[in-house]
């Protein structure tokens, strides 16, 4: 303990070390603050959307005459509430929708209005604590540790220090531990404050803190391996900068390109367009053919499937759903492709530990691709409940009025999965 206290005091006398740690702490604090603000914005937007639903339904009640108009005009909110760790690793929340108001119309176009990329291995873009941990903290560790031995050698102190009894344990180990501890403190203290504010479950917070620790340990090991070589400090710094550049930027970006090339994924926007075009073409397709195709999917609705020669909501919602069925394979291929890319990215993470640890952070924070796909599946499950609720009214010719709006199924993240 006295060795650590001694080295801590020594580090406090080093202006450059203090500046590097202060800069890291400021970045980590800013990242946590921005993450908390982002999550708060998400929650506020979700709350506004849910609160606005009552106003919307009051407006809808003024003119809804039947189940068809209730289904057509009634937007229903769905949302993917940020987890208690999302503030620390925003993941794909900044590019994937965290809420979506859906109608009982064709769903796929509604979902794929936002094309989703594979951000797991993409170049850094968002500024959150995970970014600071994965990209900035290694640079500070490099600055603090690259000249651990070479700096002393260049100053002419190395042999005198190494000749001290217990130098390995009392000097070098303590110096490494104190500097590593400084970096961890600069990262973990802002995280701990953020976790307290966000009400993060203790075990999950510990898990995330463990990942931060693993990143720091990984880089400390890499730096010490390089710093142990007898080269000059400048050579160590340049080598480590090159390793950082390769491990955190070039290799993940290359892996991302390779994975995207190896696993082609249907274009989400094209899928939405195909869905819409098929639905629009439904107006011109033979109506009896549309109903036959629809009843193959819902044979239990056949007794009430007769439609008049004029417009009827049964027919309209039938070709809407057939639009979804038309692109079902493409949609499944899209999801499979995205999932496969994420799986390969995880595998690449074993070879590229910084990328792997970044993925582990977003996975723990439930802001990764899997969480995004999971939300889409919850929307699909809810959409099915919503459609079938209105099918029941439409195909049994049950009257539907303003009072029935209260019975429309609500999205529930717990059951729509």
């Amino acid at each position, binding site marked *: 303990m006295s060795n650590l206290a001694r080295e801590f005091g020594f580090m406090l006398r080093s202006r450059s070390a203090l500046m590097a740690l202060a800069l890291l702490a400021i970045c980590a604090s800013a990242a946590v603050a921005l993450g908390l603000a982002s999550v708060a914005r998400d929650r506020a937007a979700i709350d506004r959307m849910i609160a606005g639903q009552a106003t919307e339904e009051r407006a809808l009640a003024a003119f809804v005459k039947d189940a068809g108009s209730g289904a057509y005009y009634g937007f229903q909110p769905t949302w993917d509430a940020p987890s208690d760790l999302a503030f620390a690793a925003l993941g794909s929340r900044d590019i994937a929708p965290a809420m979506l108001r859906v109608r009982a119309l064709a769903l796929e176009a509604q979902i794929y209005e936002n094309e989703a990329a594979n951000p797991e291995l993409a170049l850094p873009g968002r500024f959150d604590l995970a970014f600071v941990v994965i990209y900035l903290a290694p640079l500070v560790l490099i600055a603090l540790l690259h000249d651990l031995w070479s700096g002393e050698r260049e100053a*002419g102190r190395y042999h005198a220090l190494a000749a001290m009894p*217990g130098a390995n344990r*009392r*000097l070098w180990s303590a110096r490494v531990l104190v500097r590593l501890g400084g970096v961890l403190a600069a990262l973990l203290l802002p995280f701990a404050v953020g976790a307290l504010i966000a009400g993060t479950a203790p075990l999950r917070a510990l898990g995330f803190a463990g990942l931060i620790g693993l990143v720091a340990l990984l880089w400390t090991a890499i730096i010490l391996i390089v710093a142990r070589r007898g080269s000059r400090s400048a050579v160590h710094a340049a080598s480590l900068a090159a390793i950082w550049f390769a491990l955190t930027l070039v290799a993940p970006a290359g892996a991302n390109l390779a994975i995207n090339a190896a696993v082609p994924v249907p274009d989400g926007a094209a899928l939405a367009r195909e869905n819409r075009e098929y639905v629009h073409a439904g107006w011109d397709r033979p109506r009896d053919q549309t109903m036959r195709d629809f009843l193959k999917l819902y044979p239990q609705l056949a007794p009430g499937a007769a439609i008049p020669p004029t417009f009827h909501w049964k027919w309209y919602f039938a070709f809407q759903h057939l639009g979804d069925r038309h692109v079902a394979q493409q949609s499944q291929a899209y999801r499979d492709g995205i999932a496969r890319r994420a799986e390969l990215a995880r595998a690449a993470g074993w070879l590229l530990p910084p990328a792997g640890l970044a993925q582990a952070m977003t996975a723990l924070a439930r802001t990764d691709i899997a969480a995004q796909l999971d939300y889409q599946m919850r929307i699909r499950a809810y959409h099915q409940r919503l459609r079938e609720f209105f099918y029941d009214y439409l195909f049994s010719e049950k009257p539907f009025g303003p009072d029935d709006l209260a019975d429309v199924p609500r999205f529930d993240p717990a059951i729509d999965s």
Partner: protein
Amino acid sequence: MSNPVLVIDQLVVERGGRRIVDGLSLTLAGGEIYALLGGNGAGKSTTLFAILGFLARSGGGLTIGGQDPATAIEAVRAQIAYLPENVALYDHLTARENVDYLLKIADCRRSRAEIEAAFLSVGLAAPAWEQRAGSFSKGMRQKTAIALAMLRDTPLLLLDEPTSGLDPAASADFHALLETLAARGVAVLMVTHDLLGAADTADRIGLISGGRIASEWSAQTSEPRFDLNALHDGFARVR
């Protein structure tokens, strides 16, 4: 010789496949100052590095206080204070902070009064104690390092070219300090090119050549302590 601090017996050290030290033998008792002279590349510093355990020996024996650096390096280093040719301190720390910090690394507890007493005994004036070492001359840095060695109270002091770059007065001061340490029972082994300085201070002078002691002289009890002509001739032959 009673109670030898350092015993080197037929030491062999190789570097890059070449024998730098080849059968060197030397025994040093407490309170004795031994000057090891030799030309560049003769194996002087290599011998020091072998004693410190920085280099493994290929053959022969080596003990410090009865401990072998090959098997008990920490115990050996606890008995050695080492001053490199250019004593480097932490420039951003004062003399007192440097000594305090380095003593803690060596796990050696000394009071403020003891540190000040050591500074005084090496001739480091009080105003320098709180000065940053970055402003120190080589002589002041050496005095600080000697104070550190005194405070560590090790039985063996190793010096690598301690007077190179010192002016004559500072060099004389330094040799006086060594005599003070020797009087306290510290065994001093210094490798040097400074033949005159060695002749002034050392109890024995060994001339290293071909990786072994080629000639050795012991100080006489009466002046002159050494035959300077013989020393000079010997040194000229091996340089």
